[in-house]
């Protein structure tokens, strides 16, 4: 299997604009599924195209198992990209589409035929050989595109937003299929998505990009538990931020002083972050303050409360059973478990909107 290393990888399309991909360093583990996550336009497709050899980097290097592959042509890299919009060749049958890569490798017809059938079985579309792409649904086209890439047994599989054009239930099905095939074949896979939930569910490791720059490269749960910045925590949704000053394991804020053993900053201006589901309502003692219930929403499997503490509003998510315990306007103790507090550096000047609520 193949380990992919990106080293200072940069792509500038136009001197007037900032780089589409900016000095990207990434170590993509062999045989693992790595997600490339980020909002639309952050350079995900550009990065994939450079790995596949379809776009020349402005600077930096790409290595497969330690060797630079920049001078190797796309058809010889063994890195196959599946485009976001499938791009099945419209005038070819499904069998010819899937067999395309083998035909290019001069494999004999008989073998192509049997391997095409194996692939159709793998993506659960047997008997589709003679159809044309425009007779297939989006989900089916997506599977054929996947089969067409897998048949050449790539060393690196690059999937550009494979689920984004599918509706919800197909997306779950496809997700399972991709994960199963990837694990079975053990192909080093890079998977692009703009959906953080999808990245977290599917990937072994997630690389988060904003504006062409790598923000964090970590195991999925780290993005929730120990995000690098307020911006990242915000992208992963629903965290409370309270500005303060951090010193010796405690953070002093406008609403009180809290024990906080887990911190990214050694000392100085900082932001306390705590996820809504980590806020304990109605519990006093250490690390607790007094707040007022502003409003609440019962949402089936959980309940969501808006709480005012001093001049700050926070959000708390609890078991549905607790809805009855607190009424709007009640004064209740609110506890922040020290183990669930994560102290971040301030990047509030750059992102004032992210300063108080998630």
């Amino acid at each position, binding site marked *: 299997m193949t380990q992919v290393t990106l080293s200072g990888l940069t792509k500038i399309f136009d001197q007037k604009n900032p780089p589409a991909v900016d000095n990207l360093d990434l170590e993509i583990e062999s045989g693992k599924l790595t997600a490339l996550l980020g909002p639309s336009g952050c350079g995900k497709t550009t990065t994939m195209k450079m790995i*596949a050899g379809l776009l020349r980097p402005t600077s930096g290097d790409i290595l497969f198992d330690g060797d630079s592959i920049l001078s190797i042509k796309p*058809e010889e890299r063994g890195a196959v990209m599946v485009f976001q*919009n499938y*791009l*099945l*060749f419209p005038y070819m049958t499904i069998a010819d589409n899937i067999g395309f890569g083998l035909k*290019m490798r001069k494999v004999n017809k008989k073998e192509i035929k049997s391997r095409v059938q194996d692939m159709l079985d793998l993506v659960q579309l047997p008997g589709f050989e003679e159809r044309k792409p425009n007779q297939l649904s989006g989900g089916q*086209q997506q599977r054929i595109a996947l089969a067409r890439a897998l048949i050449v047994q790539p060393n690196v599989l690059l999937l550009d937003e494979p689920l984004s054009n599918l509706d919800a239930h197909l997306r779950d099905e496809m997700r399972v299929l991709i994960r199963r095939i990837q694990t079975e074949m053990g192909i080093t896979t890079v998977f692009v998505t703009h959906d953080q939930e999808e990245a977290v569910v599917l990937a072994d490791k997630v690389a988060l990009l904003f504006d062409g720059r790598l923000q964090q490269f970590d195991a999925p749960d780290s993005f929730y538990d120990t995000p690098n910045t307020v911006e990242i925590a915000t992208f992963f949704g629903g965290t409370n931020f309270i500005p303060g000053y951090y010193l010796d394991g405690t953070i002093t804020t406008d609403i009180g002083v809290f024990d906080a053993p887990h911190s990214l900053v050694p000392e100085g201006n900082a932001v306390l972050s705590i996820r809504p589901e980590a806020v304990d309502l109605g519990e006093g003692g250490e690390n607790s303050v007094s707040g007022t219930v502003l409003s609440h929403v019962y949402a089936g499997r959980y309940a969501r409360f808006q709480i005012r503490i001093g001049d700050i509003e926070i959000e708390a998510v609890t078991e549905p059973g607790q809805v009855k315990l607190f009424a709007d306007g009640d004064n209740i103790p609110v506890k922040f478990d020290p183990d669930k507090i994560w102290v971040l550096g301030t990047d509030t000047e750059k992102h004032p909107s992210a300063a108080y609520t998630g």
Partner: protein
Amino acid sequence: MTTATAPFPRIRSRTVGRTTLRWVGIMGLLSFLVAPMVPLFIWSISFRWFYPDILPSEYSARAWEQVISPTNNVIGATGQTTLIALLCTVLSVLLGVPAGRALGLHNFKGKRIVEVLILAPIIVPGLAVVLGIDTMFIRYGLSGNILGVTLVHLVPTLPYMTLVMSGVYANYDVDYELQARSLGARRWATQRYVTLPAVFPGVVVGALFTFLISWSQYVLTLLIGDGQVETLPILLFNFARSEPAIAGALSVVFILPGILVLLLSSKYLSGDSAAVGGIGNI
């Protein structure tokens, strides 16, 4: 790009209603083209045809004999016209397809200026253009021979071919080529299996019409051919004044390729074809 197949040209319509409509249109166009040929044909076989008779009073095969006879060089001129038109078509395709691709696919500085420059020979009368290059052609020995005439025919045909192809490529998603490369296709195999099938209808339509444009050139051939290169339009013009019956017969010969081209290209001129993007709906 919202769907996978949309950016690709030519998804043929299978609806009966549309097919019927298309055939009605083609028949209409054909009769429009054939109607003027009827009197021409009658001219060509008439011996006496005076006002107010609706049909000639006497018929003769003389004009057609003259057309076939070697003294008038009709067969030679037809061959020469065909040769020039074929050469001109080949050159237009070889130059116009890449030029149209560059224009249709890429945005570059000064693209608008290039577009206007390409259109210029179509807007400016051919005569003005040719008077300008005539002296140059004489200097390089391109005056009075087939090569020179072929080259000067490129003045109207090459912009046309380029525009048709830029229309085709504007509707073409170049990511198909990248996909093919990524799957293991070399450069030429990509062109062969992916690009060519996609742009082929446009190339065919462009080539057929290029052939016709060259086939029917008169002024350009006269000036650059310098009386040495005898094509059908030149012959036709000579006979038009002296021998209306022969001119009638020649006109029939002259107009045939046009009808053939229309029939051949009608297949590609359906409303869904990307080629239409280049030449406008008929």
